[in-house]
């Protein structure tokens, strides 16, 4: 029997997925910024997509806060490396180093 597409109450999963993981996102030059930190569309989407789980465990706040703090701290101590005459900077990015200390 021929099927007709439907949009019933229980199709909320499709609505949530469409609006959180799909659709257009804004580019960085017009996007809002929060506390001086550009909140890029991609990050926002990623955060929202996992929101239910993250909120459940209260991770969102911590994640958000620490990421922003880290960003602000890193931007504050931008180090300019002196370049020789024929050198130029090709890419500029933040990095982090993971280290663990063995307990005595």
């Amino acid at each position, binding site marked *: 029997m021929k099927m007709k597409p439907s949009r019933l109450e229980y199709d909320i999963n499709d609505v949530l997925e469409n609006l*959180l993981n799909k659709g*257009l996102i804004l580019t960085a030059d*017009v996007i809002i910024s929060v506390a001086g930190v550009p909140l890029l569309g991609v990050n926002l989407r990623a955060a929202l997509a996992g929101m239910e789980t993250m909120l459940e465990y209260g991770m969102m706040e911590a994640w958000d806060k620490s990421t922003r703090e880290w960003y602000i701290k890193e931007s504050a101590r931008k180090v300019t490396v002196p370049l020789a005459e024929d050198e130029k900077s090709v890419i500029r990015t933040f990095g982090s180093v993971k280290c663990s200390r063995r307990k005595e």
Partner: protein
Amino acid sequence: MSKNGVVLETEARGGRYVYCIVNNTNELSLDNIGIDNASVYTVSYRDIAAVVHACQSQPYESKDEGKVKEWIFSHNEVIDKATEHFSTVLPFSFDSIIAGDDNTVRDWLSKSYEKLKQELERLKDKAEYTVRIFYDKNRLEEKIIGQDQALKELKEKIERMPERAAYLLQRKLELEVKDACNAMLVNLAEEFISKVKEHVEEMRVEERVPQFPGKYGEKKMILKVSCLVHRNKVEGLGEVLGEINDREGYDVRFTGPWAPFSFVDLGET
């Protein structure tokens, strides 16, 4: 203007929550249908417009899941209303906010005009549909054993043996059935994809989700595809899906029409 003046002005301008882009020349109001009953209106540039509401220049965030879902549904409803009004829409993801006022929105429209217009043309008369196909695992396994002479004999042998002695053979049977099942599912998915493909402009095979809550909880999903379908072809797609749905052991869920969330693409902007 003093530096302070600039800062104040930026703050006062706030933001514009963007729902979607449509074909429209006039600026008009769509009433208080937005998130938290915000007043929704269009900001035009030439013959395209952004459907927006004025908001603060910060994202909608809440720890209350119910609240967030309510916002998301409001956004979806605005997209539906816009689709009714303007037919083709380019939907935006939830919580997309432009920092600035109507002029900022217009600037952005003018900068992105070519791409937006091109997308509106490309997606004209087309809508997105989601297709999920489920199968009954037990029935598929029975069918596989029934069709394979060696497996059938193995099963009968196990049934004649005492339970303990049959343990290893039972494991062997399970593994072989599982392999055969997986091979069959790959073939089925390919078959279904090629059938659906004939009736769609574009399709996207979504990440395989093994389980789906609710009515289909007992069954497993073989396939989930998002399809961009021309409105003349929806019936044809419904026919093909109906044939699959009528097969024993298979269920199809066919939802839509949705705004073309999976297919709208501005490329690198």
